Structure formats: structure tokens, C-alpha cells
């Protein structure tokens, strides 16, 4: 992640401004290989290390929660330039101010847990 600069605020800005292919290349490659691999796992019923079949659980059907939740996530992603994984990579990289972002991401998750019953899903 760090070495492809996917943890950089600059790269996320560049992505949301559609000014470079870089981030789309990373995500596009991952998803393309992912789709092929998941299809192969399903077709050949590939088992995991423990010998159990690899199962894929369909996500709950809804539009509201994914659209609203996704939009809130996107607002935060563009502002802080990091989704949860890259936040901690940044902390390891030496950008200790990312600890503030990560701490508040935990607070945000906590607030969701508190208010989830009152939110439309």
C-alpha cells in the first residue's frame, strides 16, 4: 500500500479529480483478479487450509444503508485521504497525526453502534 502511494492524501485527491489512472489501476487490477479468482473458487469448490469449503456470504439486500453509509464514508475518505487500512499504514510510516484520524474513526464506529437502531437501513 505504502509503496504504491495508495496511502497518500495526494493520490486520493488525484483519484477524486479523475486526473490520473494510478488509483483506478490499483483497484481495477485487484477487482479484476478478484472476480476471476472468486469465480474459480466457486467453480472448482476450492477448499481452504482447514479443508472447509470457501463460502461467500451475500450481503444483506438494501439500498439505503449502502448509499447513505457509503456517501458518509466517501466524505471522510476524501477529506482525510485515508480509508481505515491506510490510516494505520500511515501511522507505521511515521505520520503520527494519523492517530487522530484513526482514533476518531473508532469513535465514529462507536457512534454508529449507539445510534444504529434509529438509522434507516
Amino acid at each position, binding site marked *: 500500500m505504502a509503496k504504491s502511494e495508495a496511502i497518500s492524501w495526494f493520490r486520493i485527491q488525484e483519484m477524486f479529480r479523475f486526473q490520473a489512472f494510478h488509483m483506478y489501476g*490499483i483497484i481495477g487490477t485487484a*477487482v479484476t483478479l478478484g472476480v476471476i479468482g472468486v469465480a474459480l473458487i466457486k467453480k472448482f469448490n476450492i477448499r481452504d487450509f482447514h479443508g472447509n469449503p470457501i463460502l461467500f456470504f451475500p450481503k444483506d439486500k438494501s439500498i439505503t444503508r449502502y448509499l447513505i453509509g457509503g456517501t458518509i464514508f466517501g466524505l471522510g475518505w476524501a477529506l482525510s485521504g485515508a480509508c481505515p487500512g491506510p490510516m494505520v499504514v500511515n501511522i507505521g*510510516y511515521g505520520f503520527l497525526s494519523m492517530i487522530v484520524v484513526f482514533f476518531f474513526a473508532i469513535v465514529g464506529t462507536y457512534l454508529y453502534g449507539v445510534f444504529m437502531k434509529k438509522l434507516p437501513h
Partner: protein
Amino acid sequence: MREIITQTWAWWFSGAMIAGIMFFLLYFGQSFGFSSNLRTICAAAGLGKKTKFFDFNWKAQTWNIVFLIGSIIGGYIASQFLSSGQPVEISAATINDLSKMGIAAPASLQPQELFGWNAVFSIKGFLILAFGGLMVGFGSRYAGGCTSGHAISGLSNLQLPSLIAVVGFFIGGLAMTYLIMPLIF
């Protein structure tokens, strides 16, 4: 050899590594989704006593916390041993757009205007980081996943909900980039 490692890794290599991580986790009976860790941390902090959402067997998620610690170590290794010290090579168009908001061309991976200590200890700078994190944490759990869970794992499994979530990521991201950021910077 060392030059190949220290220069910026190609998008296709990084993308393939991410897919590789997903399959590695699937092979070991887990699934690739990072934001679940935020919920696990809340549970481990004992918040499950008052809030049912955090009352679950979080110890079963230990592997993902190990993944989180590994990510921190990976970041450290990348900066200490694999870094060329070169700033991010973003496009000239982006540099131009950002300069209009008062953000200088990259000197490293992150802008000093947001992540430097002067920014962190200013009220406005602190609020930007805090609200950014808050929305990422709240939104990812509301949507049931983040970039790894939805954009990578979900889309790989051709999940319509994940596609809706990714559309949401871009609605939010574009609104922040074009509408809100010009107001705050």
C-alpha cells in the same frame, strides 16, 4: 534490484498484491475487510456492556487485529528501508488544483498543511482530521464495509450492495472534493 523496490510500485503490481492478500485470507478461512477492526476495538474496550452492537465474541477477530498490527509494521518497513524519499508524483493538474486551495505541491507522501504538527494542534486542522476520521468510521460501519470489504472483496464476489456502496463512496468523495473542500480550505 534495490532501485526496483525503492521506486514507486506500479499500479498493476500493487493491485495484484491486494488481490493476493484477499485470496491468502480466504485460503485461511477469513475474509478481507479492514474496517471490522474498528468494531473489534470498540468491543475489546468493553463497550459491549452498554451497546449491543459491540457485544460479540471479538476474540475470534484476533487474526484481523494481527493484520492491523502487520499493516503498521509494513508502513514502518516501507518508510525506513524501502523508501526513495521522493515526493508523490501526482499529475500537474492535481498540483495546480490543490495550489488554488493553498496546498503546496507534494514534498513527501502527505501534505504538511493537513498532517504537520502545526495543523494538528490548530483548531481547524484538528477538526478536519477528527471529522474525516469520524465520517470514515461511522460511514464504513453504516455501509457494512470500507474499501477492502466492499470495493475489493464485495465487487470480486459481484455483490450489488457493494457496487451501491462504492457509488456512495464516490458521491461522498466528489461532494467533498468539489463542493465542501473549496469552502474549508
